[in-house]
Structures are given as structure tokens and as C-alpha cells.
């Protein structure tokens, strides 16, 4: 271990004299995280997004009232702000003035059309500069329409069984409250898979773990650089084991990763008010994440012939894993196969663990993610070590 530490110490001194490690390990992730936060911040994560909607009820029916009551419930939950308008002109003026992001137009004859299986629409008019809010408003309307569709089918089936025509009186006899027929919105508590960090923390953590893989390359690829520069022969001629040489590079990679992550955590906490959560949990996540990065990049180094080759291949893998792991966009929230694929990246586990911690959970909440990340580290690190040792013995 002494020889490995000496090699790591020497490499650390060399890297400290090479400013590129500061640029790639600290400056780039910090600047990018801040830029992403400024550009995409609330919109990308859905947190802190202010939804201001208007509604024009030209129908004045039970169904339109049900829709409005759902919106009012959402307002009372703090999800959105709602203003009602007497007509579309007034709503459009508010939209132009920027008072609202979008408004719902519930047309006259809405309920009648529903009861008679006629086609009808709820118009959503949005501000072109508020695409996310408008999209969410459209989702509200779509969900309501789905509920209406289901009710229409149920009503038709019931009327068919009863052998009576579908009339407003018949509908009223079935249910005095159309909202109770399934046309309601519910606020869902997000699971760990879809839970979101607040914007500063999300981008700080995303960029930190994304660039972590580049940072540890400075350590791991040192072995290939020594091979190219000829100093590896002298190291191996010294009375130390091959394992010590590899371990020295691993120690340096780990140190660089931990230093980079620590600086970024402190800096983003101070500069961007990122909320990383329980320190012990964060520390465990960081150490596990760094170990996995060392393992994966070590694996890359073991198959590469030159430092440049390792750098190129490592960059490709870092970008793919970073994108898939949701360090740029919250891919896990998209559902489907993409959500499943994120489990194949330590990045996603890191972000999941951090999301739990950031929401105020104790440090133990990070343990499942830490365990998953350590499996990545163990598997890739073991293969990399064996492969590199074999390479040095040839």
C-alpha cells in the first residue's frame, strides 16, 4: 500500500500542476450546472413552476362546473392559480398581459353534447412563451375528456340495459355529480423513480456526476500515459508489485473524484443554494459513485491501447451513461423502457439516492442506491484490475 500511495502522491502532484484537471473536474461542471439552471431550471424539473390559468365557462352546466371545481381543488392544493373570466375576450386580454399562462374555454352546449354523444371540445389557449404551462393545461383538459369519454360509455351501457333513451333527466338520476363519475384529478405522490430534485440540486448533481467520469480518467489513464512515456518500465523494474502500480492509479482517480465532488457540492450549495441532503448519506453516495466511475473508466483503460484511445472511448461511455442516467434530463420520469434502462447506470442510482436525501430523508435512505452503485464498482473494478494486471505482466 505504501508504494501505491507514493505513486498516487506523485501523480497527484503532477495533476495539480496540470490545470486541465481543475477545468474538467471543477470549473466545467460548475459553470454548466449554473447555465443549465438558469436556462432550464424550473421548466426542466417541474419544480418551482408557477401555473397561472384562466377559465371561461360559457356552458354553465354540471359538467363545466365539475371541471372548474377540479381546477379549484388544484388551486387549493397550491398546484396552480385560477382566474375565471366572463368571456374569451377578457381571458385573451389577461393572456396578452401575461397575467395567465393559458385559459380553458368551456363552450356552450358542452354538457348537451356529452349527453348526446356529440363531438365537442374544450379549447386551451396558451401563451407561446409558456409552452410548459400550456402543455400542462392541455393535459388537464385531456384527462377531463378521458373521464367524460368513460362516463359516456358507462351511461350508454346503463341506458341500453334499462331500455330507456339517454336524457339529461336520466343522467341526473344516475349521478348528481359528474365529477364523481371519474372526472377528477388526483395529486400523486411521486415514487423514488420519478421523484425530482429541485432545479439547483438537480443540475448541480447531474453535472457533478457526469463530469466525475471525465475527472477520474485523469487518474486511471495515467497508467497508459506511463506506458507511452516509458516510465512504466522503470516503475515495474522497482521492487514493487504490479498490483501496487495499478492501485496507485486507482487511488489517485478516487482522490480526484472525491475532491472534485466535494468542491462542487460545497460550491453549488453556496452559489446555487443546492440542497444535497443529509451529509453522511451524500458522502456515501459520493464515495460509491466515485468508486463506480473508477471501475468503469478502469475497464475502459484496460481495453484501450493508448491514452487518447481511452480518452475517446471513455468520453463516449460517459456521455451515454450520463444521458441515460438522467444527468441532463430527468429521463426516469418519462416512464417505459427508458425508466428501466436508467437502472443500468450508476448515474441514475446516484440521482435517485440524492432525490431521497434532498427531500429530507435520513442518510439511510441513500443506502439502496449506494448498494446498487457499489455493485457497479465491484463488477467493473474487479474486471478492470484483473485485465490491467494481466496487461502489465505480458
Amino acid at each position, binding site marked *: 500500500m505504501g*508504494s501505491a500511495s*507514493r*505513486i498516487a502522491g*506523485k501523480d497527484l*502532484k*503532477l495533476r495539480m*500542476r*496540470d490545470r486541465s484537471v481543475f477545468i474538467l473536474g471543477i470549473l466545467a461542471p460548475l459553470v454548466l450546472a449554473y447555465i443549465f439552471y438558469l436556462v432550464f431550471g424550473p421548466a426542466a424539473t417541474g419544480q418551482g413552476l408557477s401555473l397561472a390559468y384562466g377559465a371561461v365557462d360559457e356552458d354553465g352546466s354540471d359538467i363545466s362546473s365539475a371541471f372548474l371545481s377540479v381546477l379549484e381543488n388544484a388551486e387549493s392544493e397550491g398546484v396552480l392559480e385560477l382566474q375565471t373570466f366572463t368571456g374569451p375576450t377578457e381571458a385573451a386580454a389577461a393572456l396578452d398581459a401575461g397575467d395567465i399562462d393559458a385559459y380553458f374555454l368551456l363552450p356552450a352546449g358542452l354538457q348537451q353534447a356529452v349527453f348526446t354523444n356529440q363531438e365537442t371540445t374544450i379549447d386551451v389557449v396558451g401563451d407561446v412563451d409558456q409552452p410548459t404551462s400550456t402543455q400542462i393545461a392541455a393535459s388537464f383538459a385531456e384527462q377531463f375528456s378521458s373521464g367524460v369519454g368513460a362516463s359516456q360509455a358507462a351511461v350508454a351501457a346503463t341506458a341500453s340495459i334499462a331500455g330507456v333513451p339517454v336524457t339529461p333527466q336520466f343522467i341526473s338520476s344516475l349521478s348528481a355529480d359528474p365529477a364523481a363519475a371519474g372526472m377528477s384529478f388526483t395529486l400523486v405522490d411521486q415514487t423514488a423513480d420519478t421523484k425530482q430534485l429541485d432545479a439547483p440540486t438537480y443540475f448541480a448533481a447531474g453535472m457533478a456526476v457526469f463530469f466525475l467520469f471525465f475527472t477520474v480518467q485523469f487518474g486511471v489513464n495515467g497508467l497508459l500515459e506511463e506506458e507511452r*512515456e*516509458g*516510465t512504466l*518500465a*522503470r*516503475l*515495474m*523494474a*522497482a*521492487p*514493487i*508489485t*504490479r498490483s501496487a502500480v495499478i492501485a496507485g492509479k486507482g487511488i489517485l482517480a478516487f482522490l480526484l473524484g472525491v475532491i472534485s465532488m466535494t468542491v462542487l457540492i460545497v460550491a453549488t450549495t453556496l452559489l446555487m443554494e443546492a440542497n444535497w441532503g443529509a451529509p453522511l448519506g451524500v458522502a456515501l453516495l459520493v464515495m460509491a459513485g466515485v468508486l463506480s466511475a473508477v471501475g468503469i473508466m478502469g475497464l475502459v483503460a484496460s481495453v484501450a491501447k493508448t491514452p487518447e484511445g481511452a480518452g475517446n472511448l471513455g468520453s463516449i461511455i460517459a456521455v451515454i451513461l450520463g444521458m441515460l442516467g438522467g444527468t441532463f434530463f430527468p429521463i426516469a420520469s418519462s416512464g417505459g423502457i427508458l425508466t428501466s434502462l436508467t437502472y443500468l447506470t450508476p448515474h441514475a442510482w446516484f440521482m435517485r439516492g440524492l432525490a431521497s436525501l434532498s427531500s429530507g430523508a435520513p442518510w439511510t435512505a441513500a443506502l439502496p442506491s449506494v448498494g446498487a452503485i457499489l455493485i457497479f464498482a465491484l463488477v467493473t473494478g474487479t474486471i478492470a484490475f484483473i485485465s490491467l494486471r494481466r496487461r502489465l*505482466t505480458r
Partner: protein
Amino acid sequence: MIAGLLEADEGSVAVVGEAITTGSTRGRAAIGLVPQDLAIYPDLNGEENLVFFGRLYGMGGDPLMGRVGEVLEVVGLADRKDDLVKEYSGGMKRRLNIGIGLLHRPRLLILDEPTVGVDPQSRNAILEAVESLSREGMAVLYTTHYMEEAERLCDRVAIIDEGVIQAEGTRRELVSLVGEKDRVAIEATGNLDAVADTLRAIEGVTDASATDHRIDVLVTDASSILPRLLTSVSEAGGSISGVEVQEPNLEAVFLHLTGKALRD
């Protein structure tokens, strides 16, 4: 293989009784390796390079720093020890490369073409340093393409061609192995044809031929026969104005053994 970098195809290597393999570490402590390519860190200064490698060989504290100072003096870099190596000249880098190999006082120093691409002053300094180390009792394994270096430095020489040892022994043994003769050129006046006839009759003389003012004599061992040659020239009426002894060099031996010019 001798330094423990590669596994031996066959046979074994032992230094001070310790087997040298890629997996062993004890024996390697007795070896100092100076690779052909520079094996130093450009972004460390000269002293830092020496200290780092010294620690890998188990040195530390005052003994290490004292030895680092000694080596810097030996390789002539004491006044540049604080400069980054990337600011050194090629010759200075070569000398530091050798200094690292010397640092831990190895019993065996392996020098792999240490003078390639070196200016004449640095080259001479390197050769003098090697001679000095040899006199102090350090075994030196010196690989070179420059035969004059091998002749100057080495007690025993192995000629390797395409990875195979073609011949091995002292310089004289190698020369005699291939039947090469010493050439003695005698500048003289008089009846040189008669003098040449006289010399041919001497035991140990293979041939003698006269030209205008010179007799070329081929002998098996010039150092032992030279006094008798000179006496015989005088007795045969020749007047000697100069003598030059040309021993066959290793390059001639190499060419004789391999039939090819030097390469690789």
C-alpha cells in the same frame, strides 16, 4: 527479462542469489535500470524525480536526501535540481535518467543505449561515470550499438543479432573466436622486402608485406610479439620511424559473425 519486466522464455535469472521474475520484488531491489527511452517525469524537477524513485526502492529521510545530493553531483545536475525536467536539455535528461538508476546503489546496473542522441560532452560524461562505477565494483550491463563504447567500457561482450546471442566473451576472445588478427604497421626505410621476409619467419606472424615506406604485419597477438618484431626489423637493416598497432574491432567481429551491417 533481467530486470524482471518480462517472463523468461527459458532459463532463469538470479542477481545476488535472488531469482528475478515478473512476480518477485526482492531481487529487483539489487538492480538499477536505465531504459533506452527517457523514463523520467517532465513535470517534476530533477530532485523530485530522484526522491520519488528512491522511495520506491525503500529509501527515505536523511539518507535518501543525502544520496539524492550525491547522485545529482555525479550526473552534474546539482545546480539544476529545482528546475522542471521539461526545461532540461536532452543530455541533462539522459544524465538524470542514469542518475535514477544509480540512486539506490544497485549491485547490477543495466544501461540500455544510454548515449543515443546525446551531445559529445554529455556522452563522454556518461562513459566516464560508467567507468567510475565499474571501478567502484558495480556490475554494469551495457547495451549499445556503438562498438567503440563496448570496447572502451566492457570486460565481457555479448553480440546479439535478432534476439540471439551470437558470441560472448572478452574482446580478445571474440576476436580470436573469428580468427581476426592484429595488424602492426611499421613505418621504416631500408630494404623493406627483405625485412618482410625476415618477419614472416617469426612464430606468431601470419603475414608481412612491404610497400614504399611501410611494412604491414599480421600477428596473432601484437602486444606479446611487438618487441621481437621491432628488434627483427632493426637486425634486418630497417630503420624504424613509426609503429601503429591496429587490433581488430568489435564491429569487424560483428560483421564477421552476422554478415550484416549494424541495425535496430
